[in-house]
């Protein structure tokens, strides 16, 4: 993420094609760049020529990144996406004008940079937000004395579009978990008059973050979204449908504990609480740590971290079909057709669900000790 350095700044009217040539990148290098960029954006290889012609003409957008109630995990994830020449070329090519974790400037100078970027690129800059926004008391989270709510409203006003990175910005995330002590909400619960792309995950897969940014850089538009604002290219498929353990699920072969024969043989993790059937994300194909593996491949059930209210789905190790009522929201957002067992719990009455939810609000140390069995 070198774009913040002043020396990496290039003329605003320089296209990406020109920038690559001025880096001495050959035509073959450009083809490599386009092939890996199309793959990064989850576009089919047939789209490579389209990406090439769009990238050739792409101009440098201004980006303002605001961090609210968050753990910096999303920024950590992004900056650990393979530190490549290719991705740094992309990031060199956006003008990241404000990101309080990454920028060298602080205090008044940092805020002045944000205000200047907003003024100079009014109506054209891209706003990226990570973290939820507390509505309970403005003092819960402030930057330079400005409440998160005010800063979001002020910065969103002149933005061309907003990307909500991480489950906190997209759906409230961990701060929003019951009993939501700060009154945390998502970006889309405050800003309703701008295009918003949700890139959830706790954190999101690094190449999914860069893929969405690259889409905006390449085509100057925001990608196609699903019903809860997520890019279809990365969140269009269900983990369960793409899971390599699916053949065991279909045959009813399940690991019952983390160290039984089924676990050793790599059987399905459904009974250990896997939320794959109600989770939409790219983990099963894109994977983590530069394509090494993903939680299910490492023997751990999916937590469903890209779904709204995943913290309140009734326990990470609780089987989806167990009627706790805590995954009511997730069911509302879409259940895998194959998860017939999970459907039974959709029949739970609202009052029962509410009872279960409120019963869960007071958490003692004992409860935490019980871990998955709670």
């Amino acid at each position, binding site marked *: 993420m070198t774009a913040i350095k002043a020396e990496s700044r290039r003329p605003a009217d320089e296209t990406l094609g020109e920038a690559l040539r001025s880096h001495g*990148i*050959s*035509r*073959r*290098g450009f*083809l*490599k*760049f386009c*092939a*890996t960029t199309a*793959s*990064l954006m*989850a576009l*089919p*290889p*047939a789209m*490579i020529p389209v990406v090439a012609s769009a990238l050739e003409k792409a101009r440098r957008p201004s980006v303002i990144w605001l961090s609210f109630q968050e753990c910096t995990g999303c920024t950590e994830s992004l900056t650990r996406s*393979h*530190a*490549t*020449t*290719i991705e740094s*070329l992309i990031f060199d090519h956006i003008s990241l004008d404000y990101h309080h974790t990454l920028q060298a400037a602080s205090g008044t100078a940092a805020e002045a940079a944000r205000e200047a970027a907003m003024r100079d690129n009014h109506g054209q800059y891209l706003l990226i937000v990570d973290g939820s926004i507390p509505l309970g008391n403005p003092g819960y989270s402030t930057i330079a004395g400005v409440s998160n709510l005010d800063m979001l409203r002020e910065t969103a006003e002149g933005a061309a579009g907003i990307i909500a990175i991480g489950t906190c910005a997209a759906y409230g995330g961990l701060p929003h978990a019951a009993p939501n002590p700060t009154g945390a909400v998502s970006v889309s619960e405050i800003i309703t008059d701008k295009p918003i792309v949700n890139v959830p995950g706790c954190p999101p897969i690094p190449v999914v973050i860069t893929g969405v940014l690259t889409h905006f850089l390449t085509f100057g538009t925001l990608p196609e979204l699903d019903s809860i604002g997520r890019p279809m290219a990365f969140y269009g498929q269900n983990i369960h449908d*793409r*899971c*390599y353990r*699916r*053949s065991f699920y279909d045959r009813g072969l399940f690991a019952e504990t983390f160290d039984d024969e089924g676990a050793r043989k*790599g059987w399905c993790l459904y009974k250990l609480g896997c939320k794959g059937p109600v989770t939409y994300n790219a983990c*099963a*194909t*894109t994977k983590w740590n*530069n*394509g*090494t*593996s993903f939680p299910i*491949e490492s023997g751990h059930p999916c937590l469903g971290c890209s779904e709204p209210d995943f913290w309140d789905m009734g326990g990470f190790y609780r089987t989806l079909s167990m009627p706790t009522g805590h995954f009511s929201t997730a069911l509302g957002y879409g259940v895998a057709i194959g998860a017939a067992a999970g459907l039974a719990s959709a029949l739970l009455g609202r009052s029962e669900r509410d009872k279960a939810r409120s019963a869960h609000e007071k958490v003692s140390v004992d409860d935490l000790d019980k871990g998955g069995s709670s």
Partner: protein
Amino acid sequence: MNFTDATRSRVEISAEADLTHNVRPLLHEIRHALQQLSQTGETHVIDLRRIPMAPGEEARILELLGEGEIKATLTVLGRSTIIETAYAGVWIITHYNESDEILGRFIEITDAPAILKSQKEEIALAAAQLFKMLSADQPTKEETRNDSDQS
């Protein structure tokens, strides 16, 4: 199988192993694409990043495809390897970054991957550069006369 990413090949499975069975369908996809290539000349690209591979499956696919006669290395934006498999017309292209981590791996079914060929724009540029170099080296009339005086 020296072009296989070590991290992906650490868990070895056989093609018959009871996992997702990506190996056989992918080889069929390649076979169909090869038939198409030989009959109509139509090329095909498979992005291996888009397929939900079980541990060891990618390594198994690469192993079954084997290595053919051509191995080329491109050195731009990190290394890229372009390898024709034991099956003519089936190429494995792997792009690495400068830390030698894999950025993407594609199976191309084609007579020659586009990235291997000299690029049109650069061929034109090369001709101009060569002409410029030769013109700069051209001895002046004065130099030619002096040379012949001395001999």
